[in-house]
C-alpha cells in the first residue's frame, strides 16, 4: 500500500468497530515510516482530546419541560376530548399507583408537605385542648403569664417542626427529579442502616414514605422507621401518609405500624379507612382490626 492508502486506513486502528484485515500490514508500515507514524500519533491525540472534552450539563429547565410534556401527554391519553380515538380503554383503567399522572407527582410533594405541616399544627392544638381535661381540678390556677409562656413554647416547638418539614419539600423535589427508583431505594436503605439517625435522616425517610412514587421504596422507608416509632414526628408522618397511600400492601403495613406504636391519634383515620368503600377489602379489615387493638 502507498503512504496515501495507509493514511486513509489509520482511523481503523483506533476503533475496534472498524477493525480491518489490513491492520497488520498498516502497523508494519508505521514501524518503518516516520511520516505515517507521526500522522497516526496526531490522529490518536485528536481523538483523545475529543473524548476528553468536558460534558456540559443542561439547565434544570430541560427536565421540567420534558416532564411537563410527559404529563400533558398522559393527561391527553386519559381524557380523550374528541372522538379521534374512539377505542380508548386506557381511559377506563382504574387509576393505579404506577399509572398515575405525572402531574400528581409534580404537584403532590408540595401539597403533601403542606398537609404534613397542617397535621402538626392540628396535632399541637389538640394537645393543650385535651391536656387540661386529664389534669385533676388544676385549671383555675393557670395564670396569664404561665399560659403565655406555654404558648411561646408551643410556638417554638411548632416552628422547629415546620422547619424540618421544609427540608422534606427539598427532599421530595430532589428525589423525584434527579434519581432513579433504584437510587432512591439505596438512599432509604442507607438511611435505615444509620444507627442513631439525625432529624434529617428521619425526615428523609418520612419524605420517602409520603412521597416516593415507588411502593417498594415506601415500604422500605416504613420498615426503616419502625425503630423510631417512639418519635411523635414519625408517627405523625405515617398517619398523614396513610390516607394518601394507594398500595394496599403499604396501607396494611402502615396500619400495623400504627397499632405497634399504639398511636391513639390514628383512630379517626382508621375509622374513615374502615368505612371507605373505595379501599381494598383487606385494608378495610386491617383497619377494623386495628381499631379494636388500639
Amino acid at each position, binding site marked *: 500500500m502507498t503512504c496515501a492508502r495507509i493514511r486513509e486506513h489509520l482511523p481503523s486502528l483506533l476503533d475496534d468497530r472498524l477493525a480491518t484485515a489490513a491492520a497488520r500490514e498498516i502497523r508494519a508500515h508505521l514501524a518503518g515510516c516516520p511520516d505515517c507514524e507521526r500522522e497516526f500519533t496526531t490522529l490518536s491525540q485528536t*481523538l483523545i482530546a475529543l473524548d476528553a472534552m468536558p460534558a456540559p450539563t443542561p439547565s434544570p429547565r430541560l427536565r421540567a419541560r420534558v416532564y411537563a410534556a410527559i404529563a400533558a401527554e398522559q393527561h391527553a391519553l386519559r381524557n380523550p376530548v374528541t372522538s379521534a380515538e374512539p377505542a380508548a380503554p386506557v381511559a377506563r383503567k382504574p387509576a393505579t399507583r404506577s399509572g398515575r399522572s405525572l402531574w400528581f407527582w409534580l404537584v403532590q410533594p408540595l401539597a403533601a408537605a403542606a398537609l404534613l405541616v397542617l397535621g402538626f399544627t392540628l396535632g399541637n392544638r389538640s394537645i393543650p385542648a385535651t391536656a387540661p381535661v386529664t389534669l385533676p381540678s388544676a385549671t383555675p390556677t393557670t395564670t396569664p403569664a404561665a399560659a403565655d409562656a406555654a404558648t411561646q413554647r408551643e410556638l417554638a416547638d411548632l416552628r422547629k417542626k415546620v422547619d424540618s418539614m421544609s427540608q422534606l419539600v427539598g427532599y421530595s423535589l430532589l428525589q423525584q427529579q434527579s434519581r432513579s427508583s433504584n437510587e432512591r431505594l439505596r438512599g432509604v436503605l442507607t438511611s435505615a442502616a444509620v444507627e442513631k439517625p439525625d432529624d434529617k435522616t428521619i425526615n428523609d425517610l418520612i419524605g420517602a414514605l409520603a412521597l416516593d412514587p415507588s411502593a417498594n421504596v415506601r415500604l422500605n422507608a416504613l420498615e426503616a422507621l419502625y425503630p423510631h416509632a417512639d418519635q411523635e414526628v414519625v408517627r405523625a408522618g405515617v398517619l398523614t401518609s396513610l390516607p394518601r397511600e394507594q398500595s394496599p400492601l403499604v396501607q396494611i403495613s402502615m396500619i400495623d405500624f400504627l397499632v405497634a406504636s399504639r398511636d391513639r391519634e390514628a383512630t379517626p383515620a382508621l375509622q374513615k379507612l374502615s368505612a371507605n368503600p373505595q379501599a381494598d377489602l383487606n385494608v378495610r379489615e386491617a383497619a377494623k382490626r386495628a381499631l379494636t387493638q388500639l
Partner: protein
Amino acid sequence: MFTAAPHIPVDSCSFAVNHPADDLVATVDTLAPTSDHELMLAVRGGELDALGELFERHHGPLFGFLVKLTGHRAAAEDIAQVVFERMLKYRHTYRDEGSFTAWMYHLARRCASDHFRKTNAAPHATDPVDLQHHADERPDAGETASTGDDHALLHTALARLDRDDREVLLLSRFQELSFAEIAGILECSVGAAKVRAHRALHSLRMVYLKLQKEPLT
C-alpha cells in the same frame, strides 16, 4: 432501518465512553434493572412514566452531543426537549427490534436539521464567552490552563468542520452505537458511514493541528 446489528465488544477499546446505564446495574436484587428497549416498549404501550427513566439515563450524553453539534447550549437544550417530545409523539413508530439509543440519535439528527433550517444558519463560530463557560464547568477545579486551552481549540476546530463531518464524528464516538446503527441514523450505507467517519477525523485533525500552531487570539 435499525435491524439488529452485529455488535463488536468494545470493552478493550481505549476510547470507550461511559455508558450512562452502567451505574444502574449494581442495585438491590429485588429490583430487576429494565433495559432501555423495554422501557421504550412500555412507553409505546402507554406507560408514559417510563420515558422519565429514559430521560434520566440519556439526556446527559444527548445534550453533550447537541452542544458539540450546534455550538450553542441554548439551542442544544431546545433541541433535546424536542427530541423527547417527539419520542412521545412518535412512540408508536418505535420498533420491536429497535435500539433505543440509535432511535434517539436518529430523532436528534432530524430535530437538529429542523433547527438549522429554521434558524437558517450554520452553527456560529465559537463564542469565547461560551467557551470560558465550558472550561469553568469542569468538575476538577485543579485543571491546568493548557488543558482548558486544548478544549477551547478543539471546540473551535469542531465548529469549523462541515456539519455532516461533525455529526458523523460525534456519533462515531458513542461506542454503544454500532456502525450499522450509525449508518441507520445517517441514512446511508455502513461503508459510507465508515468512510465519512474516517474523513471527518482527518479533517478535525488538520484543523486542530493548524489551530495549535496559531492559537486563538
